[in-house]
């Protein structure tokens, strides 16, 4: 038992040591995100809190308004900001983090000022201080411990929430967590989570130490150990700044240091998208002079599409059916060529975006059951489920539950619904069906886990699911400036069928290999990395 546990830890340690340069870089980004947003929140929150403490009505209004912001779930907040700011990356992340940091800072400022004993404030007034002097010389210094506690809360919560900003491409330690979730890789999740937790403890400790160092030394313990340590405590914030600066410079992202031209490639946050992102990136790196800025793991279709139309990324791989239904809001069609033609024409017209040639495979939805169930009950098609649908429990991704061509489409076309539908994370969904916690899931036809977990995809006999052929989508403006990208990516056209894609996905999902390694291996096996002219 003990040995197994130790082995786990040492495995993880060597996993982490391999990634130290990136760990530094992400830690630096994380500190910058948290530091800048907490700083902004202090700059806005302290004056706001002071203002709010001057009058009951203002106090209720200000605290109420900030409280409402606080109730917006963090991912929804990021999505809203993405739409408002029209950018992915650091800017919307810092705005979101600042908004979350405001409440504890403003509330504690108000509480702190109101908590100053009435007799002390009256004395200040009675000896002839002006309002400004009362505030500056008496109320604020006495409210300081409570205000600092608010800043501490804001900073620690900020370190936690900042892990989510990886969803909109702002980097930070959340990048590991995000990637780990996409790849069902616990070691990667921990590589983000453990440093983030340590960072939170460190930030908390540093602020606490600074606050303690700021308190004047009492006459009665002038010569104590503590008194001598106070100057040291005051220097603690320098430590954090130094850590941030060091981390940011220690390992810089290759694209940031590249002086030539860059292509920014995005991806959604699941395995296949990461592999496709790597395949495209490595082809471009091998055959052009462009440097690739990998902005992978964006939190879903809308994040990618918004980023692309806003010019924050230059290309990513999209699926024809997703373009048709989710982006263009068109009715479902089952003919692959006609779908491709519609998205190609409409994307060009509406968004100035170009669909390049598809990779070859169709990654569509398949309602999927355990193979044992399928044998026992003779389930081959979705229609076969109709008679027992009243007793079946389904586990779907949130996206599938909502999409017109997802569960609503199934209900319409087949005329039945399931007893219970749970929204599950993609990786949890497979475990849930294997463990018998749900009976039906929405698998993707290219998912390696279908074969690995002994699952049976059911035939879509009424053609609800549109074709989902994957293809690179690129900004027309970028394509005009870099026509060579079209040629390079054309070499990937048609090289991946469903079986191949299942195999590549499985390498990453079940063998825990890096998408970049799997992609490189595939490209060199296929001879795609060699020059052809």
């Amino acid at each position, binding site marked *: 038992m003990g040995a197994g546990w130790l082995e786990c830890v040492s495995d993880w340690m060597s996993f982490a040591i391999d990634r130290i340069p990136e760990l530094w870089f992400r830690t630096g980004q994380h500190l910058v995100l948290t530091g800048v947003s907490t700083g902004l929140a202090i700059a806005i929150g302290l004056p706001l809190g002071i203002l709010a403490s001057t009058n009951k009505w203002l106090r209720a209004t200000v605290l109420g308004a900030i409280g409402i912001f606080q109730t917006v779930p963090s991912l929804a907040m990021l999505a809203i900001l993405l739409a408002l700011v029209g950018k992915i990356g650091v800017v919307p992340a810092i705005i979101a983090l600042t908004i979350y940091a405001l409440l504890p800072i403003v509330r504690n400022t108000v509480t702190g000022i109101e908590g100053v004993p009435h*007799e002390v404030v009256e004395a200040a007034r*009675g000896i002839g201080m002006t309002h400004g002097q009362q505030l500056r010389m*008496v109320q604020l210094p006495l409210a300081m411990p409570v205000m600092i506690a608010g800043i501490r809360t804001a900073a620690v919560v900020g370190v936690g929430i900042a892990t989510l900003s990886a969803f909109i491409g702002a980097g930070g330690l959340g990048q590991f967590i995000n990637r780990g979730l996409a790849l069902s890789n616990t070691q990667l999740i921990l590589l983000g989570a453990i440093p983030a937790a340590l960072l939170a403890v460190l930030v908390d400790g540093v602020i606490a130490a600074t606050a303690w160092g700021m308190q004047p030394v009492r006459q*009665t313990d002038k010569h104590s150990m503590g008194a001598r340590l106070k100057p040291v405590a005051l220097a603690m914030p320098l430590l954090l700044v130094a850590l941030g600066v060091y981390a940011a410079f220690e390992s810089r992202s290759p694209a940031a240091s590249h002086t030539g031209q860059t292509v920014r490639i995005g991806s959604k946050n699941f395995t296949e998208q990461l592999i496709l992102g790597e395949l495209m990136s490595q082809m471009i790196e091998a055959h052009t002079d462009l440097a690739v800025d990998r902005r992978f793991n964006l939190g879903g279709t809308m994040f990618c599409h918004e980023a692309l139309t806003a010019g924050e990324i230059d290309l990513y791989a999209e699926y024809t059916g997703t373009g048709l239904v989710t982006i263009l809001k068109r009715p479902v069609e089952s003919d692959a060529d006609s779908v491709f033609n519609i998205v190609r024409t409409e994307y060009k017209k509406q968004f100035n975006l170009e669909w390049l040639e598809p990779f070859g495979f169709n990654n569509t939805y398949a309602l999927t059951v355990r193979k044992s169930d399928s044998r026992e009950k003779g389930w081959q098609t979705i229609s076969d489920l109709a008679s027992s649908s009243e007793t079946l429990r389904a586990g779907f991704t949130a996206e599938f539950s909502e999409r017109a061509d997802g569960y609503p489409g199934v209900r319409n076309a087949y005329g039945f619904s399931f007893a219970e539908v749970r929204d599950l994370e993609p990786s949890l969904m497979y475990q849930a069906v294997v463990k018998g916690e749900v009976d039906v899931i929405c698998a993707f036809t290219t998912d390696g886990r279908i074969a690995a977990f002994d699952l049976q995809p059911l035939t879509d006999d009424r053609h609800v699911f549109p074709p989902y052929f994957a293809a690179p989508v690129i900004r027309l403006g970028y394509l005009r400036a870099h026509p060579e990208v079209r040629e390079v990516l054309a070499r990937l056209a048609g090289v991946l069928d469903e079986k191949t894609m299942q195999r590549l996905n499985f390498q990453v999902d079940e063998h825990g290999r890096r998408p970049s390694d799997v992609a490189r291996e595939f490209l060199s096996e296929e001879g795609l990395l060699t020059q052809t002219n």
Partner: protein
Amino acid sequence: MITLNRVSKSFGGGGSHAVRELSLQVKEGESLVLLGSSGCGKTTTLKMINRLIEPTSGTIHVDGRDVTKQDPVVLRRTIGYVFQGIGLFPHYRVIQNVEIVPRLMGWPPNKRRARVREILDLVGLPPDEFSGRFPDELSGGQQQRVGVARALAADPKYLLMDEPFGALDAITRDSLQQELKSLSKRLGKTTVFVTHDIFEALTLADRIAVLHEGRLQQIDTPKKILSDPATSFVRELFEKPAQQLAAFQGGD
């Protein structure tokens, strides 16, 4: 000289009166004690003198000038005030607490420092030992000495004291009363002192003004009030302590 002329104060839109039609004079160099039970309006009266509370009607003159015509901030800096809850600034050392009014008035630092030493000596706190301490490093009596020192620091002509010894034990209170009495005689300050303690009033007062339900009952020297109470309220107020004192002396 402080002159109150038909001063009234009502709270809550005229519903209840804390002070009604109060007229009195505090003479130059005099120590006047406002005596009464809680709620009689004595603290309200004191606070109206330096405009911590504004009167509803009537006028108050300090040194012949209407207080409502002066900047309240400037007015308060020229009148020493000792607060009921002491009200020292807990984040300031003794030296900073004492020098605060001179600092607000813009005295140069070396003049301030010299004055702090002088005044701390005066109230019986050796500056070398006490000036670096924080209020929570002092006993209750020491804190109140700092409170008095703070009120005297800018050498004001007038001193307002709101039950300054209320929270102290009897022995400390007694010695502070004696010291204050000799101090104010020596410095010649014009003092208004609020208390509900009859013995304190008798000890400190040149004259006592007895207040009841916002009205002035009698204003006179302690001797005169004891021998010739103007109202039944005043007579009853002093009867009990006098009896106690007599009983105590008789039993000795």
